[in-house]
Structures are given as C-alpha cells and as structure tokens.
C-alpha cells in the first residue's frame, strides 16, 4: 500500500518536525548560534585590525614598552608613541610591576655585534606568542636604519610588501585578483558555513539517534511497526528532523544576512565579506546529503542499541570523522586541491565539510566537489534504506547486548 506508506511518512514527518522545534535544546541552539556569530563578528574585525596594524609601515605600539639602551643604537630615534626610554633597570622593573609598561627590553652595549637583547615580561603566557617582541623588532629596525634610509625605505624594511594576488589558471589566463584580505573575506563565510553545516547536521542526526533509541527503550516501537512500515518511519523521522535542521540554518542565514551589513558599517573587517549565492545552494545541497548520511547512521545505531547511553557512546565513532575536515582546515583551505582535500571530498562522512572548505580555498576542481556531493547523496540514500532494515532488525535485539554478530544475525532474521 504505497499510498498509506506515503501518508504515514507524512504524519511521522509532521510529528517529528513539530516535536523537534518544541524541544528546549533545539530552541536554545537555534537562538544561541546567531549570538555566537555576532560575538565572532565583533571579535574578528578587532583581531583583523591588530593583525594588519603591523603592515602599515609605522611602529606605533598598541601597548607601552619600556627599553634601556646601553648600546646607543637608539640615540637618534624619534619618539614613538607607547615606547618609553628608561635609564635604570630597577626603575624599569618597577614600571613593569606597576603595569605602566607591558615589557621591558634591555639592549646591551655589544648588541650590534651579538644581536642579543634581554626581555623582561610580567605575567603568564608564551613569549613566542607575544606580539610585543615583533613590535620591538620594528623599533630596532628603525633605530638601525635611521641614519642610512629615508622614511619610506624604513617603512619598507618594516613591511616589505602588501601582495595583490593574480590567479593564473591552467591555460595561463588570469581569472581573478585581489588582496590577501579579499581572500580572507571570501574564505571566512565558507568556513563559517562549514561550521554551521556540521553543527546543524550533528543536532539533527543526534536528535534522530535520541528519538529512535527512546522509542525503542520506551517500547513504543512495537506500536509503531504494527501501524506502519519501517521505511515510512525512517523516512518520516529523517525528513522531519532534517526539515527542523534546515529551518535552523535558514534562521541563522537570515540573522547573518540582516546583521552582517549593519555590523560592517562599524567594523572595517566585515565590510568585505562576500557570500556567493552558489555557496548557499551548495551548502543546502550538502546539508541534505550529509544529513542523510549521518541521520541514517545515527538511526541505525539507535535501532541496534539497547539504551540511550550505549547509543551515545557508539555514535561518537561516527561523528569524529565529520570534525576531521574542520581540524584539517589549515591544510585544506591553502591547498584545496591537495591529496588530503580530494580524498576527504569523496568520503561521505567528511565530504560535506571538506567540500565547503575546498570552496573556501577557491578550488580549481569544482567538478570534484559536485561529484563528492553526488557520492554523499547516494551514500545517504543507501544508508537510509539500510537504516530501515536495521530499525526492523533492532526489534529483535530487545534486551540483548549489542555486538556486530548479534546485529548481523538480527539483520538476517529481519530480511
């Protein structure tokens, strides 16, 4: 009775969708992510300004630095805002303790020949991660070059070049150009999308895991399977929770679309963020394909498990691969057509995030991304079919401890 199966799947879809959007967890997450986005939107420009401030050719310091010069190399140095000359080490230490300066540098009299400088710091944190060291490098560069070079030349010593990129394709044609900032502006939305995609897939498939496991634990499942087919149950559940996930993404994108232009008026770093329409289309396509893969796997785990706890533990094995591309983003984005990126594109568990990150890296092989989408979509459909069988077989495992052997035996019996 295909008509009844479709009608049943629709009923289950409606029930699961409305149940999901009434859940407190879903609502908190749906509202919480935009808040996080806004938080990052505020932090990002600030970090950007700090990052690019070293490249403007000046040596202005964000925080006060003290220095004692025994070598006279800074004798003719023009005053620099934030740079405080101190005569005595004891005074310097006191200023450090009082918080008047962030760091104290002592230049010994043999500095020019040895390059050695003593750096006094207060508080915790790694000195190698402290930008004060870089800032004082610039001070020393200016001091050394002061007599021999013009101001412009000194600026170039400090900041040798601001690159404009020209991308040349395989035929030798220049197909795009822009600055490093443009590249970051282009990559950032894709990276954020990849994160959103992953989170939404996790929430949706996690809910499915919970739903299936609870129904089994509650013994509700026997009532369901005598009311409709396992396939209708799985399709209804997967689509219902998937639609709730899509609604979540739509809300996030709407908030982003409204808030980003407004924030960009205040923060220069955001003004150049660009979101290509095809990225949104691809993201939605990958959302569905990826969601089907994870949801079907989660449903299978839920159906084969005997308790929510057991199911949660096993599900972690499936979820870890999805995070790999995010962790490997530092490798994928700079090298979107490298072996790692390409392999991850064709593995259904990593394909959604890896593909979006390849787009962020401006891949030359979009066809591979599309192919990865097709592979993931087919894997999703196959796994959905399989999950209905496991769901059916899972009924046989009431009260049994789960093992590969028992699941396989149940699968064969359910066939």
């Amino acid at each position: 009775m295909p008509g009844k199966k479709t009608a049943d799947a629709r009923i289950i879809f409606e029930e699961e969708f409305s149940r999901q959007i009434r859940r407190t967890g879903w609502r908190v997450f749906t509202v919480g992510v935009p808040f996080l986005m806004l938080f990052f939107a505020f932090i990002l420009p600030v970090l950007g300004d700090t990052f690019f401030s070293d490249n403007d050719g000046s040596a202005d310091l964000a925080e006060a630095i003290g220095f004692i010069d025994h070598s006279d190399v800074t004798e003719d140095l023009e005053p620099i805002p934030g740079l405080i000359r101190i005569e005595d080490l004891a005074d310097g230490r006191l200023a450090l303790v009082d918080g008047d300066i962030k760091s104290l540098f002592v230049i010994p009299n043999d500095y020019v020949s040895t390059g050695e400088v003593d750096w006094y710091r207060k508080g915790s944190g790694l000195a190698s991660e402290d930008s004060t060291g870089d800032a004082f490098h610039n001070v020393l560069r200016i001091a050394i070059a002061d007599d021999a070079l013009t101001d412009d030349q000194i600026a170039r010593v400090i900041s040798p070049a601001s690159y404009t990129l020209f991308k040349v394709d395989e035929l030798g044609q220049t197909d795009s150009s822009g600055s490093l900032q443009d590249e970051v502006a282009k990559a950032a939305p894709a990276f954020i999308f990849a994160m959103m995609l992953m989170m939404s897939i996790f929430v949706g498939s996690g809910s499915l895991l919970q739903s299936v496991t609870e129904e089994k634990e509650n013994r509700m499942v026997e009532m369901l399977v005598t009311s409709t087919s396992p396939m209708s149950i799985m399709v209804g559940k997967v689509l219902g929770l998937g639609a709730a996930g899509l609604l979540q993404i739509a809300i996030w994108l709407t908030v982003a679309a409204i808030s980003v232009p407004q924030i960009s008026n205040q923060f220069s770093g955001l003004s150049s963020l660009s979101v290509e329409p095809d990225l949104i289309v691809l993201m939605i396509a990958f959302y569905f394909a990826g969601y089907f893969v994870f949801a079907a796997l989660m449903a299978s785990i839920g159906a084969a498990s005997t308790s929510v706890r057991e199911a949660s533990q096993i599900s972690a094995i499936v979820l870890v691969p999805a995070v790999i591309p995010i962790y490997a983003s530092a490798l994928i984005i700079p090298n979107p057509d490298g072996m790692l990126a390409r392999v991850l594109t064709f593995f259904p568990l990593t394909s959604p995030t890896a593909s979006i990150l390849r787009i962020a890296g401006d891949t030359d092989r979009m066809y591979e991304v599309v192919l990865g989408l097709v592979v993931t979509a087919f894997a999703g459909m196959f796994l959905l079919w399989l999950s209905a069988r496991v769901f059916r077989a899972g009924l046989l495992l009431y009260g049994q401890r789960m093992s590969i052997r028992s699941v396989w035996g149940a699968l064969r019996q359910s066939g």
Partner: protein
Amino acid sequence: MFRTASVPYALEIEGLTKRFGNKTVVDDISFSVEEGEVFGFLGPNGSGKTTTIRTALGILRQDAGEVRFLGGLNAEDAMPRVGYLPEERGLLRKEKVSSVLRYLGRLRGLSKAEALDRGLELLHRVGLYEHRDKKVEGLSRGMTQLVQFVASLIHSPELIILDEPFSGLDPLNVQLMKEMLAVEQARGATVIFSTHVLSDVEEMSERVALIADSRLILFGDLHEIRVSRGANAAVVEAPSHPDGLPGAQKQAGRGGQIEYRLSDELTPEMILNAYASAGIVLSRFEQVLPSLNDIFIEEVSNARQKNG
C-alpha cells in the same frame, strides 16, 4: 486443525515456526480464531506466546508457516484494521497523553480531529480524561497501560490482539478493561488475548489455544475440551461418608459434601457401590468436568515430561 465453519476467521495461523539461531521458540503452531469471538491464548511463562503474537503480526519474520488475517489478508494489509497491545508497555514519555493518542490514531488511518475525538472519548471511558494534557512520564504504570490499551482501540479495529493485557493492573482496572472488551465484542470485534491467568480465560473465552515449550498442545472450544476429558471428580452429598475410599480430596463442609478425585483406582461406580454397601442414602451425586486449571497443569506437565 482448520474447520470449514460458516463463521469466517479473523485469524488463521498455520504451521507457524520461529527460530532464534538454533533455538526454536515457536514450533509449527496452527490455530484459528473465529470472527466475533473472545479467544484465550494460554501458556505458562516463557512458552512462546509473545513470540507467536509478534511473528503473526509480522514484527518478527517467521521461518515457516502462514498467517492470514480477516478473511485472508497478510499482516501488512490487515494492520490498519488490527489493534495491538504489546506485552512490553511504553509510550513517548515526554509527550502529552492526548498527543500520543492523536499520533497513533493518525497512523491507524484517522484524521487529526477524529483521532483526538476518539482518543478523548476512550480516555473518558477509562477514567483518564483529566490526565489528557499530562505527559506520559507523569502517569503511573497502570495508567500508562490503560492509555496504551486506549491506543489499541482508537481506530475501532475489527481484530484486537492483547498480549497479557491484565498484568500489573489492579482488579478494578482489570474489570474495566474486561467490560470495554465486552463492548468491543458486542460491536462485532474479535478479541484475542494471551495470558497465564486461567480464571480470566474461563470468564471471557469460549475457545482457547494452549501452548507449552513452543508447541501447541491444546486448541478448541473450552467446554468441548472439558467434556472430552471426561469427569475427573465426583461430588457426593450425604449424611455420612464411608471410610477407606481413596481420593477424597476436598471437604466442602456444607451439607456433608465431599469431592472425590476420579482415577482408575476410584471410578464413579466404586463410589456408588461403597455408599450402597454402607447403607448411606445419597442426597446428591455429580460427576465434575475438569477445570481449566486441571487441564493446564496436566497438559503442560505432560508436554514438559515428553520434551525431557
């Protein structure tokens, strides 16, 4: 086993077999249930009643045999017309009672409004209407069982299959459930219920099937089964009773009544002769058919002895 009766069958099970690995848990079971009757499916704990029901309903796949519902339908096609109360109770714990009933009613072919109306009507009848907006997790176990019972009746099914419906319920709710089932039967529905409580079967059913150790050992009309077994006891009412008769097992007390357990060593003729020889005039002599309890114990014991 199958009869050519004028009354059509609501359920026909023929040679049903189910194995889990090497273990046969339902072994070549055949019986049929007539439309409109209340049928008792009996068996001791662990005899295979639940597995038989699950396999018949298609929850588990059978290894052999055939099951036909409501005049020849397979399980999948018949399900919208079947109400089922599983042995293992449970509903969506976080959902409201009325929402769960609406959901299950819709899956059984009712519209949203119909499912809700019918659900509330049945909640009224089981005295849980006030709890309609409570979450299932807020109900007691007995209440949850009643809600699940309601869910199995929500679509006015033609065949109602209840697996141990009365277990865990207090006597008042058991009575309520029996009354509701009587109403369903009067409406024309067929009721099959499994149990190991024999008094329930004697009270509600005319026909029974008894299984033990995965096999059907008895099936048919309860009265005919008892008659076919012959009397297994005799009740004698007299002013006094002769000494030395074996098998005097029960002293009823009133009116000098005594019950003799009949056997090859003590036949009705021997009892009558003993009273006549002693010159005692009987005011009542009645041969008693075996109770279902007697039959159950005898048959299950025999089956177990046979199976080692």
